[in-house]
């Protein structure tokens, strides 16, 4: 059984997920996005649940790539039940997503998470009233303390096996007629299309056998239910043909095959509700529902065989692209997503002519935005054209509906619908929640300091200085010890192999490459990732974004991009990884570019050991000042090359929370794992290649190949190879420089001007291999290549300028 965890960002889905799925969970990625679904399995009440933790989304009309992935997943219908996780302390806002999910008319459980937080805000919530109003099970939970989690998943199991389909929440009675009309047309359009015959592809897998066994149980149940509820199946099916076509979620397919049709025609249900035939299966208004369903479903769960783990191997959890899921579930009925849901989404989609009327940004610069893709996707899911154009008006049905609503309400259709939904949420909120005076809270006091126009920045400085201090203290401790270990290993290798052979050179390269990865990066990366996860979970990063927004605007970025750039002073690898916190690809690229432009600690050692030592600390400081200027200029340039589409910062400032160690550990582990998988092989292979270059004495050739560059910069020819080593590991450029020049007394071989130029070039040119690997991971090959080229160009220009200035002096 597949359970989709859906909720607004920061509602605690992942806490719930991690509490039951534990460390067996793994991540999988969808092409083209850095957004992750987390899959995992959990054993709840003897049955194995497959959990899918979707990225947070505010509504089913997404505005960011992150939300799009979640929405697409939901609309593909490859799940059995939705668990909608709500932050109870934000219930007024969170209910909006719940109402949209109800429109899907599919098994749904509402989990009111963070009840303690709500209590702290002086809020009491009448869960029972909410349950009755929504018509779906509502479970209270405090995820961080493990309360209510098992109950939530048990309720989800019951909702999925119970065959109960919630009714859509009617929030705009006056708009409903237009929406209904459109829905009817969509359903009719779908009916006219050839009906796909469901067919099994390939031999039955053990999994599908289990599914059909489950559905057998379900069929019996729904049979019982339809007898109990007094619904005439014949009447249902007669009504049902109206809505056929499109997609069928798996839980329905089983029922259709069993010959029992759930009551899915809204009109019919509404009717039976009005005349008092309302059944538990129909809309859940009856309080008897719990009493009826409870024992029956638990019995069903007991009948279900406990699935042996071999049936659900972890490899099966690889997510498949949404597209293929859509085609897999072509079936007869009922349509999924429901016609009314599609109609609502279409009405809310972006009117094509509005951007022109509003004089929005130059259309040439606009990427195909999420809104346009949204409407096309909804149209695709609708499996029917929005409608034939009416010959007289030239408007499509959707445009007609939008115009109708706009005329009736005096505002754009999307605004009218969201206003109606919002109003319904507020009414619901006032009915179920009572807000007393909030308890005096230390959090507000903290914010008074942490977000203060003056002290806020002092706190920010303090936090980051402390953060870096901690990282480097921990890192240094680890680095020396691990490096020693590898030295011993190389010595041992030398005893067992011919130290003169090529094989030894390769092995040594591999060991040194591993040493570079393990000893240099890990000791710094690990504490950084732990610290980042903690800062993120506490909620401090949003405050940083708030404080730095104005400053970052000058670099063409938002406040949220502060962190990657600050982190860049420590190590470029986690800095690039931290750009994932940003929402748009553009922001991620600019932030990553600026972050690698900032000298990391390895480049700092080069700056201080060469320029600082031979030319004086003022020159070293000068390089840092120059760097800040270059960062500002580059930010400006990038912002004008790739102008911003998003209008500004709009970000929730979450309440401070005590981070859960388990969540911090898992976040750290996932991020670390990605780095290890991408960067380690590159480092090892790169190191082996360089050892072989050294062994076969190819460095002369490389120096010769790089001689145009070294000559251009006025550097000794022998530093060519050093620059290559610098790409592998920045500190190596210093060691290799001394090795290449054959002396540790650099000033004897190079002039002061040459040292300065060399350092400037090393500071700005390509980032190290590990950074390049994580850039490819976050931005893709093309942008990484573009960034590398730009960095190389910047380095050459700056070094040349320095050479010119020095010659002039």
């Amino acid at each position, binding site marked *: 059984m597949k359970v989709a965890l859906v909720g607004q960002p920061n509602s605690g889905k992942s806490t719930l997920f991690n509490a039951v799925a534990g460390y067996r969970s793994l991540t999988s990625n969808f092409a083209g996005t850095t957004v992750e679904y987390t899959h995992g399995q959990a054993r709840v009440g003897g049955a194995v649940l497959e959990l899918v933790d979707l990225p947070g989304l505010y509504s089913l009309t997404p505005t960011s790539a992150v939300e799009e992935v979640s929405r697409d997943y939901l609309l593909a219908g490859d799940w059995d039940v939705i668990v909608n996780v709500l932050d109870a302390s934000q219930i007024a806002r969170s209910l909006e997503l719940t109402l949209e999910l109800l429109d899907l008319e599919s098994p749904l459980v509402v989990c009111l998470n963070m009840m303690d937080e709500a209590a702290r805000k002086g*809020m009491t919530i009448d869960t029972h009233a909410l349950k009755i109003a929504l018509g779906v099970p509502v479970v209270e939970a405090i995820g961080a303390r493990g309360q209510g989690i098992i109950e939530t998943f048990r309720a989800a199991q019951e909702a999925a096996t119970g065959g109960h389909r919630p009714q859509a929440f009617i929030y705009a009675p006056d708009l409903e007629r237009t929406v209904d009309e459109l829905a009817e047309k969509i359903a009719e359009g779908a009916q006219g299309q050839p009906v796909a015959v469901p067919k099994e592809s390939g031999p039955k897998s053990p999994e599908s056998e289990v599914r059909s066994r489950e559905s057998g149980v379900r069929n019996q149940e729904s049979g019982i239910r339809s007898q109990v509820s007094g619904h005439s199946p014949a009447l249902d099916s007669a009504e049902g043909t109206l809505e056929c076509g499109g997609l069928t979620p798996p839980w329905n397919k089983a029922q259709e095959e069993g010959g029992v049709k759930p009551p899915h025609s809204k009109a019919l249900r509404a009717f039976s509700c009005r005349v008092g035939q309302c059944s538990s299966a129909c809309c859940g208004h009856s309080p008897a529902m719990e009493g009826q369903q409870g024992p029956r479903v638990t019995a069903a769960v007991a009948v279900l065989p406990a699935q042996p783990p071999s049936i659900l191997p972890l490899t099966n959890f690889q997510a498949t692209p949404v597209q293929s899921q859509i085609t897999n579930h072509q079936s007869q009925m009922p349509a999924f997503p429901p016609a009314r849901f599609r109609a609502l989404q279409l009405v809310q989609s972006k009117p094509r002519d509005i951007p022109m009327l509003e004089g929005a940004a130059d259309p040439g610069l606009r990427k195909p935005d999420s809104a346009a893709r949204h409407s096309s996707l909804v149209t695709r899911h609708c499996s029917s054209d929005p409608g034939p154009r009416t010959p007289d008006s030239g408007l499509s049905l959707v445009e007609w509906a939008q115009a109708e609503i706009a005329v009736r309400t005096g505002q754009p259709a999307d605004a009218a619908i969201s206003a109606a939904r919002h109003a319904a949420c507020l009414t619901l909120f006032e009915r179920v929640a009572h807000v007393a005076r909030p308890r005096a809270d230390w959090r507000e006091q903290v914010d008074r300091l942490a977000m203060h126009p003056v002290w806020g920045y002092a706190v920010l400085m303090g936090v980051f200085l402390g953060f870096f201090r901690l990282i480097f203290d921990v890192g240094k401790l680890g680095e020396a010890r691990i490096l020693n270990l590898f030295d011993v290993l190389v010595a041992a290798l030398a005893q067992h192999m011919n130290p003169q052979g090529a094989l030894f050179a390769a092995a040594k390269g591999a060991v040194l490459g591993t040493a570079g990865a393990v000893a240099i990066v890990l000791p710094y990366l690990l504490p950084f990732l732990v610290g980042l996860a903690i800062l993120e979970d506490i909620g401090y990063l949003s405050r940083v974004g708030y404080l730095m927004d104005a400053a970052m605007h000058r670099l063409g970025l938002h406040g949220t991009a502060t962190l990657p750039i600050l982190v860049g002073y420590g190590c470029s690898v986690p800095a690039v990884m931290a750009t994932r916190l940003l929402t748009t690809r553009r922001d991620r690229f600019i932030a990553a570019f600026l972050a690698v432009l900032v000298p990391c600690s390895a480049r700092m050692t080069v700056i201080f050991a060469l320029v600082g030592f031979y030319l004086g600390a003022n020159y070293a400081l000068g390089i840092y000042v120059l760097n800040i200027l270059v960062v500002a200029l580059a930010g400006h340039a990038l912002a004008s090359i790739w102008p911003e589409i998003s209008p*500004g910062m709009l970000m929730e400032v979450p309440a401070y929370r005590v981070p859960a160690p388990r969540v911090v550990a898992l976040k750290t582990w996932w991020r670390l794992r990605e780095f290890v998988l991408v960067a380690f092989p590159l480092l090892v292979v790169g190191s082996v290649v360089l050892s072989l270059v050294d062994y076969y004495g190819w460095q002369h050739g490389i120096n010769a190949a790089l001689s145009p560059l070294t000559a251009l910069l006025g550097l000794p020819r022998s530093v060519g190879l050093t620059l290559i080593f610098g790409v592998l590991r920045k500190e190596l450029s210093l060691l290799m420089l001394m090795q290449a020049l054959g002396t540790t007394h650099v000033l004897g071989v190079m002039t002061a001007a040459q040292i300065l130029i060399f350092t400037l070039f090393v500071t700005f040119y390509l980032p190290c291999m590990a950074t390049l690997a994580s850039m490819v991971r976050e931005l893709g090959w093309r942008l990484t290549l573009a960034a590398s080229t730009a960095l190389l160009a910047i380095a050459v220009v700056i070094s040349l300028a320095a050479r010119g200035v020095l010659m002039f002096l």
Partner: protein
Amino acid sequence: MRDTAKFGSPINLYDASDHDELRILLITGGWEVRRSFNQIGIQPGDRVRVLRRAPFGGPLEIDNKGTHVAVGKQLAEKIRVEVLP
């Protein structure tokens, strides 16, 4: 500008005084702007309060039924509010 705000007269959110009770009258701007405000739970009719503002034209922090939201200057200027007594 901020001091001239009178009860009931519409001003934009960025010009509102800190800690005043405000009611959102209108969100100007296009589909994306309306959409993003809607997603974060801000709608015309809502009662909000400016908690604090970041210096140098930085964002505002507003309170909307217990939810705190940072709103950038350009976006705050797209919201028309009235000051409630």
